[in-house]
């Protein structure tokens, strides 16, 4: 479960305060696939960074998987992310000198697993995303869609409860975008992951359970997606 209470985020830019988020409250129950949508500059990436423990709110409370992130030190948050979160980014960001399997293995370097176990888990993750046969390929030898699937395998290799994606389809063509969205949906359906993505891609609405809409840093509300099985609990900031 992800819970945000009255979260605000201000940036100082020169003499001005930029209000990236204002008084946002929302709850995302475990095992849901949700999208944060809105125009550019609406604060959706900021919101994702805060709920993923990549950024700290200026005000408000963030609770993820039962831990209050506000109370954690930088090192504790890093450990928390390693244990509970998987990340997928727009530009894949695979390390070019590592093979697909080695890229997927990276988060496991932070665990106490032995090399053989790390390798086995990485291959399992690659099998889940349908790339078992390309484990030895280098990123440069793979298409954008394949690279993003490797990135998803990297995100799930530690078996985190939550997978977050910042524009995971932003750099993909339509076919690959649908495949990636379908894969994220599978993570939710078959593995019970909570998946939160930021996207501009309207196709995402068909795959997610719920869409949260933001504009100018304010949560405007939510609507069910095409994959909805129930409703998330959104609270418009002003109402909270």
């Amino acid at each position, binding site marked *: 479960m992800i819970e945000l209470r009255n979260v605000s985020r201000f940036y100082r830019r020169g003499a001005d305060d930029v209000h990236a988020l204002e008084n946002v409250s929302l709850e995302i129950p475990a095992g849901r696939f949700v999208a944060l949508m809105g125009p550019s500059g609406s604060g959706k990436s900021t919101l994702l*960074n805060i709920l993923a423990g990549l950024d700290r709110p200026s005000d408000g409370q963030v609770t993820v998987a039962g831990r209050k992130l506000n109370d954690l030190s930088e090192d504790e948050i890093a450990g928390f992310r390693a244990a509970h979160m998987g990340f997928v980014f727009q530009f894949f960001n695979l390390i070019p000198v590592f093979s697909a399997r080695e890229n997927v293995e990276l988060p496991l370097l932070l665990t106490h697993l032995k090399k053989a176990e790390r390798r086995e888990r990485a291959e399992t993750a690659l099998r889940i995303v349908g790339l078992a046969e390309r484990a030895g390929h280098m990123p440069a030898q793979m298409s954008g869609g394949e690279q993003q699937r490797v990135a998803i395998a990297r995100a799930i290799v530690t078996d985190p409860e939550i997978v977050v994606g910042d524009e995971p389809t932003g750099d993909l063509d339509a076919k690959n975008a649908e495949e990636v969205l379908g894969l994220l949906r599978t993570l939710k359906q078959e593995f019970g992951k909570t998946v939160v993505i930021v996207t501009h891609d309207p196709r995402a609405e068909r795959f997610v359970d719920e869409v949260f809409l933001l504009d100018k840093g304010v949560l405007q509300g939510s609507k069910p997606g095409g994959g909805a099985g129930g409703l998330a609990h959104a609270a418009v900031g002003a109402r909270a």
Partner: protein
Amino acid sequence: MKFFPFVWRNLLRNKLRSLLTGAAIALAIALVCILRTMPVGFDNFLNQLATNTRISIHNTAGIVYSMPYAYLARVKAVPGVVSAVSWTWFGGMVDKDKGVTFPNFAVDADTIGDVFADMKISPETLAHFRSHRDGVLVGRMTMKKYGWKPGDQITLVSNVWPLELSFTVSGEIPADQDPRLWLQREYFIQAMREKGVEFDQAGMIWARVDDPNRVPGVMSEVDTMFRNSDAETATETEKSFFQNFFGSLQGFVTIILIVTGLVTLCIVFIAANTASMAVRERLRELAVLKAIGFRWQLLFGTLVGEAALLSTAAGVAGALVSLGLTRLLGAAAGWNPQLGPLSGFVVTNAILVQALFLAFFIGILSGVVPSFGAARRSVASTLRDVF
């Protein structure tokens, strides 16, 4: 150790840049190693030239000032002195246009062999030298240079005295690097007398002491003996004499050490620039690694590790190059006597260890600043700035 492949593969992601940076560091380390051999090499060179029982006695005003020849007998009488010989600069030239091309001195024929017994001049050669007033002993280097053989007749024109003398080569001073020529003082005195000059001076005196432990006492006694005379003496060990004689080389060595420091500093800047570029190009990846749980300390460690690994590997290469080069020079010195002094310049184990530490230090120093900045940078701000 599980992060070593991570560090190693990242190091090789831009092979050309790593190679060029490594080559620059390797070259600098090789240079530093070779430069570091200079002080020791210079000392070895002096040790090759000097013994620990021979002392030089010269006018306290400097070696260009003479002293009475009568001093020789008084030096010989000092307890502990085995033998002594006077030296007077002759300044002989084979070719007037070329000037003096090798050092040549008028010496006492009867004692030169005793004082310079370590030269291992053959008894036959010494006997010939003593029994032929026009005899000369010539260093092997000069013998080879002019193609002289024992029995050859040579003529030297002095640039100091009004003399042009013919000599018979008695034999060689058997040291590959020795350029000296010794002629008989008696022959020189008689020639001067024929020119109407009674020469009763000596340029300097070399004495051999029976025990190295007695050298300081003998030196002190000799100088005390001539104190308050018209020609006070300054006595010093042979090594000290050559050190003073090659005093300008000592300054050169100091300059070399300063240059070594500057070279090191330049390389730190070059390596830091490379590390900075490498880190800047990977900000996005670093942000992602931090996002997936890599702590900043770990990222900092791997980034600095990359710089240190590159620098140390380059340091090993540079040290091996310098080792090979000095060994090559040493071998060349064996083939060519004129390169003889180079055999004293040896990259020792101590220099190798210092060089490797220096290389490691360069790596650490060059990696710390850019790596620290990148590793400490917040994930959110990097993602915001870069994506």
